[in-house]
């Protein structure tokens, strides 16, 4: 079973309990910043009168996992996208590539690592909800397995269509995410990208990478062939010179 979160912007009152619980759970230093950083993995932002949480979307086929040269980022079977700081070399390709702008870097450290929400992977493995979902007083952040969260989101859209924009954000953005969002405002007004492809981003680079073995064999054979022909031509020319 793969788990995730359903965040309902219309139920969020912006109290910030999720941020505080996240800090405590993940032993992150204070203060609580106004936007996500390597030390603040989730925040609640107020945009156009509505509250919206910022956190890792935990893509089903994550960009960060595909771009990391050393496999420091991984998608676990339970859903969280986790990070192994000991492997990371600090190339920051994950920060550059993430379609949701999630991974952040410790710019102020001599031995920096990446910081991002890891969906409380340790708790999730034990069958517990994430710290933020547990702390949420209004039920705006709901933890559960992704399939039932999708069903719940659809049920809300059906029963209260006037309350919501008719879209479950994360259902198929960038191929789908484990974190889903509902809102009363168009999602771009909440600062979320609405121009993302519906397919997983890693397809874009895999289309090229998967062709490399074949390319190496064909181009290698071609180059050897050219060498063989031009050498032979030279040898023939040499012979003809000698004969004449």
């Amino acid at each position, binding site marked *: 079973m793969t788990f995730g979160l359903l965040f309902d912007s219309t139920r969020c009152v912006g109290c910030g309990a999720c941020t505080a619980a996240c800090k405590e759970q993940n032993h992150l230093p204070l203060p609580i910043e106004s936007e996500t950083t390597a030390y603040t993995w989730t925040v609640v932002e107020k945009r156009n009168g509505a509250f919206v949480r910022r956190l890792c979307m935990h893509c089903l086929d994550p960009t960060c996992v595909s771009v990391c040269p*050393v496999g420091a980022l991984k998608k676990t079977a339970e859903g969280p996208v986790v990070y192994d700081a000991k492997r*990371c070399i600090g190339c920051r390709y994950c920060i550059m590539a993430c379609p949701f702008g999630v991974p952040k870097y410790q710019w102020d*450290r001599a031995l920096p690592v990446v910081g991002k929400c890891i969906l409380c992977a340790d708790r999730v493995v034990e069958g517990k909800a994430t710290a933020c979902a547990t702390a949420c007083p209004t039920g705006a952040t709901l933890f559960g397995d992704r399939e039932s969260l999708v069903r719940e989101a659809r049920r809300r859209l059906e029963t209260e269509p006037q309350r919501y924009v008719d879209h479950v954000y994360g259902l198929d953005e960038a191929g789908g995410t484990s974190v889903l969002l509902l809102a009363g405002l168009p999602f771009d007004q909440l600062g979320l990208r609405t121009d993302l492809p519906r397919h997983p981003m890693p397809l874009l680079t895999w289309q090229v*990478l998967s062709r490399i073995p074949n390319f190496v064999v064909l181009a290698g054979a071609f*180059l050897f062939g050219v060498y063989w022909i031009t050498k032979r031509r030279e040898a023939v020319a040499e012979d003809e010179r000698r004969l004449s």
Partner: protein
Amino acid sequence: MKSGLFRRLPRPGFWQVVFVILGLVFLWVTAVRFTQGLGAATNLSDRFPWGLWIGFDVLCGVGLAAGAFTLTATVHIFNLERFEPIVRPTLLTGFLGYILVIVGLMFDLGQPWRIWHALIFWNTHSVMFEVAWCVMLYTTVLAIEFAPVVFERLRLEGPRRIILAVRTPLVIAGVLLSTLHQSSLGSLYLIVPNKLHALWYTPILPFLFFVSAVGGGIGMVIVESYFSRRAFGRHLEMDLLEPLARTMVVVLGVYGLLRLQSIAAAGGLALLIPPTYEGWMFLLEFGLGVLLPVAILLPARMRADERGLVVAAFLAVFGFVMNRMNVSVTGMEAAAGVRYLPSWMEVVVSLAIVALGMATFALAVKYLPIFDREPRPLPIAAPPAPDSAGPAGAARAAGAAGP
């Protein structure tokens, strides 16, 4: 004025002082970078995680080394042996380019001492993984390809012969690795279709990076030959530079058409009208760096004129550098929501790395047989005679090194 500036290069004086000061500031910046972190030394941020060190040091460093595989393929695979005299300076450039890329990476990586992690922790789905392996393998190949020059100077016949015996597979490996590496730097940006501006994002980015690297690499060979003549009186003859320039025109022409095609597919003129910041930067890159050098070199008269040749080659290199900077910086700014300008410390590191490369190149030209077999003095100011026996003789001598 120009010639006065460059003739002073080898003598102690102004440039040596600049070099020493740059070196001292570079040491200070290095200390800041590694004790205070990237935030203190650079203008990078979570919104703009890749800056000058990736855009210039890595993307341009690798690209301008492309002359090496182009020329080794021309001479050793297509067997156009009259170009043999060009192989050595381009191999040297390629090798130095890659060493400097690695130095640049040491500054840019958050934890550079873990650079070897790519050897044991594999992720074949990552373009960066491909890039890392190409850097490692091609640097090794370049070192082996260049080694005979050093062995020749040290009169070590045995090792030199061993390398020459495996030269063909070595050259082919080098060409394959370079092709992969140049294109993979473009592939890095395939995964950000929503971040990279439409003037630069295209699904054929890997191919464009490869073609433009060949053009820029050839331009670099011509530019270097010019500087070497100014500084040491060692250079390539016009009868070699002219066909090189012609090849460059063809490559730039093909590249220009491909660029226009992909821009037409992405939105065409609508991307340039009304003029935007990105639009102007593109026009600067494409007009000065692609159209102008092609226009200059089309008349045969201009190709026969050394000044026209060098100016055009210089513009091609400029256009190449602009392209890489536009892809990595200009094209990424709008989506990031911030303007990025490198900090003075980032600039110092990049300048110092370039200076280090130039100094090493100068030393190598001085002490190793780079520009011709027998180090022989050439008149500094005398115009090169296209029909002199020099290059032909050198080519023949070089040809004798083959099997």
